């Protein structure tokens, strides 16, 4: 069977007969089961596959990262504490996808609550990289990327990023991930990690797929006060326009061999020549603030996370225990949280609680917020002169799962060096595969100014056409 791209599938999906649609659904179901068996990519497969309306996505399977609420379909956020949680409502993006004719194939594996860069902090199975099953998928949207890579049926993934959780797995698996501007896509129904940075985005096999799904799920939502009212752009209409005259910034710090695998940095540099062939130009620039990004990012992320996770105390949903009148509320909640949270979640709760305690709040939390302002200024300065910033997506190729498991937390946090800057400051990014090292894909991250998704999608699409990566 020849795999159709979704772009070509869309030429005929509006005319599908009922039986053809049923076949597509049945096949998607069967293949998802196999993919799960092979790569442990799902936490929950959806038994009730149904297309609810006819729209652009008619017949396209959509997988959903497991921290996005799906009505009636188990949603765990990758945590034991929500092992039996069935949301009473759909996230806004799920409503939009259903209205567009997509069907929810299942909920994809992730680091618990998004706490990880490799998808190894998992309460359930650790997803495997379809390029090499011994290697990590990247995190935290690891399952989303693995399913996307492995799917041989029309499929696009809804993923989510806080500090790089779309770019990392997209780069490690050789898929395309779009992390939109903060506020572009409604977060209503997204189980919070760090609300000031969480963004729902997409992972697809190619730029078209990821852009198409973003176009469908984006938009202002009165239920999320941080979503922004904008004219919704058609990326599909603008993505094929040429990029002649585009000016690209290459921040030298992001190619420093001290932080980045030389082979990765060099491959990205190499592919820049393709951009020149397309009529774009680039300058090497400096973004010295980048070195503060990771620590400041983590302080804000864990401060917010530690408050978000406070609600899980075994009362109305999630893990519960037989009530025992000899226990106080605090003792009961402690037992639930002790058993329900994994090690990384506990680490972030403790660190996050510390960072916002009086006496430390000024030195950590409030200072980190100031650094975010400075970083935004830094980016704005660059975007006043350039259309996009290009860096490697990840500093390394996907490590082996066993190596990743024994890595020190600080070293793991360091993996986010490429992605934290734009994520912390709310800039949109797209990661596309550009080359391979040791047979493993490496990604290029294109960063745009706030709400300039159309521009970076256009650059990515133009580049994708000339790269012949596969």
């Amino acid at each position, binding site marked *: 069977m020849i795999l159709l791209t979704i772009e070509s599938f869309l030429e005929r999906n509006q005319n599908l007969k009922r039986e053809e649609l049923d076949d597509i659904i049945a096949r998607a179901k069967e293949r998802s089961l196999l993919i799960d068996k092979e790569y442990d990519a799902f936490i929950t497969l959806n038994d009730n596959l149904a297309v609810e309306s006819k729209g652009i996505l008619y017949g396209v399977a959509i997988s959903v990262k497991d921290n996005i609420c799906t009505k009636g379909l188990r*949603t765990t956020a990758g945590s034991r504490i929500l092992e039996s949680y069935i949301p009473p409502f759909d996230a806004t993006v799920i409503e939009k996808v259903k209205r567009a004719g997509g069907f929810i194939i299942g909920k994809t594996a992730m680091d618990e609550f998004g706490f990880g860069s490799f998808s190894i902090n998992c309460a359930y199975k650790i997803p495997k990289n379809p390029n090499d099953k011994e290697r990590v998928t990247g995190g935290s949207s690891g399952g989303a990327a693995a399913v996307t890579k492995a799917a041989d049926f029309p499929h696009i993934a809804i993923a989510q990023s806080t500090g790089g959780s779309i770019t990392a797995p997209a780069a490690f698996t050789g898929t395309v991930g779009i992390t939109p501007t903060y506020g572009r896509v409604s977060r209503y*129904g997204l189980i919070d990690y760090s609300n000031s940075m969480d963004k729902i985005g997409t992972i697809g096999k190619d730029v078209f797929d990821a852009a198409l799904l973003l176009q469908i799920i984006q938009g202002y939502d009165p239920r999320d*006060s941080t979503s922004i009212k904008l004219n919704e752009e058609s990326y599909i209409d603008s993505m094929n326009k040429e990029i002649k005259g585009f000016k690209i910034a290459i921040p030298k710090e992001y190619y420093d061999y001290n932080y980045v695998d030389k082979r990765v940095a060099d491959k990205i540099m190499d592919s820049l020549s393709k951009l020149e062939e397309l009529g774009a130009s680039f300058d090497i620039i400096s973004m010295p603030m980048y070195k503060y990004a990771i620590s400041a990012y983590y302080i804000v992320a864990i401060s*917010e996370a530690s408050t978000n996770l406070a*609600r899980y*105390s075994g009362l109305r*949903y999630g893990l519960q225990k037989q009530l025992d009148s000899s226990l106080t509320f605090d003792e009961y909640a402690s037992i639930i949280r002790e058993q329900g949270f994994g090690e990384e979640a506990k680490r972030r709760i403790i660190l996050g609680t510390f960072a*916002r305690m009086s006496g430390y709040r000024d030195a950590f939390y409030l200072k980190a917020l100031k650094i975010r302002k400075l970083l935004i200024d830094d980016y704005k300065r660059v975007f006043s002169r350039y259309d996009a910033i290009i860096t490697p997506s990840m500093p390394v190729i996907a490590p082996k799962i066993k190596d990743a498991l024994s890595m020190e937390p600080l070293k793991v946090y360091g993996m986010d060096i490429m992605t934290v800057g734009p994520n912390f400051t709310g800039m949109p990014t797209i990661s596309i595969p550009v080359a391979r090292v040791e047979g493993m894909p490496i990604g290029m991250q294109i960063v745009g100014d706030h709400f300039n998704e159309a521009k970076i999608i256009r650059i990515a699409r133009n580049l994708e056409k000339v790269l012949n990566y596969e």
Partner: protein
Amino acid sequence: MNEKIGLEIHVRLNTKTKLFCSDHNNIKNAKPNSNTCPVCMGFPGSKPVLNKEAVRYGVMIALALNCSISSKIFFSRKTYFYPDMSKNYQITQYEIPIGREGYLEISNGKRIRIRRVHIEEDPAKILYPTNDLNTSEYLLVDYNRSGMPLSEIVTEPDFSDKEEVREFMDKLISILEHLGVFDAQADAALRADVNVSIENGERVEVKNVSGLENIERAITYEIIRQRSAYRLNGRVERETRHFSEVSGTTTKLRAKEFEEDYGYIFDPDLPIVKLSDELIEKIKSELPELPDKRIERFIRSYKIEKSFASILVNKDKQLADFFEESLKYYNNPESLAKWITTFLLKSLNWHKLRINQTHVKPEVFALLIRSVDENKISDAYAKDLIKIYVDTGKDITDMIKSYNAINKEDIEKIARRYIESNMKAVSEYKKGNIRAIDFIIGSILKETKKRADPKLVKEIVIDLIDKEEASVAQ
């Protein structure tokens, strides 16, 4: 005797919907946990959306309390674990409240300084099966209250005694009611944390005292407790205490060093709200007439005494409204004000009722007072009728009217009877013993069951005796 008292007052705002979701805010007698949604239940993935009406209410309160208004406000998460907390953090305002540095003046001319006015969400309601935290084996949580909007009003420790507190609270509630932002009858409409310190003692905070009466009880108890603690130990320690409504006493919750660290962060789900000068000016220009202005107007337009005007307005807005409504039916402000602030208020206080909790209607009340003023009804009977009216809610119109119907002729009829059967007393009277007819008057009053005005009865009796004498003389 140098007590310092400060209040952190929480009042429920009567917006249409809750503070961060679209559930109703003023549903009465709803089944527990029926008025909830994923947001106020703290379900994963739900997001708060700010109720703009509550912000406007907050600005109105801050303006009425002479505060300066912040040009930008935002919300923070106050994190602590408690069973009534749906998210284990409360969305409140921390760094920058809506209003700061205001004051409210009380009758002795003292300005009670207002430190801040902000808005926040109410936690859920906890029900203890035994009504007592210490003896209940379990507790129940009703999330209907979760997410209802509160305004927190914090005073400086400027009160010297509980009388000042009571007057301030009456006035504050009247202001809130004049603003139309508060319903005193709502469930847990008013709670306060009360800070009390005596001379040379540390500050003691009594948490979560519900209602005006309990606030006064808590203050009384604390002052006595602290004074005796000081006599005994030479000091009063800084601590937080719990007030028991059952016993009227306070018990220690925690010492100062165990105060919770709430770990405030900005709530990243809620954007900054700008309060522009134009918006504030607009709200200011739309503020309704407030108590001080209303009292002035009552004195000026109705020519009533200041003490009456103050009671009418500051005791309870509904009472002032009732007064003005009654005036439409009987334009005698002085008389109405007197009767309302004395006998009507006395009956209301007896039952701890407010005027709008009774069936007392202004038109009926006005008729009653008019009848008194026109000597159709005795003062004593009017007092009885007010009592019956407040007690039972029964329409007293007929009783007022029927009283009028039997009035003068009936008294004369009864009087003739007693005069005829007591001729001895009459002749005593005629001889100059004026008191001799007291028995006759008393009998008539007794028979008419206080429904006759003693003055009128006396007049009638004397008149009849005089007339008889005149006829005999002919």
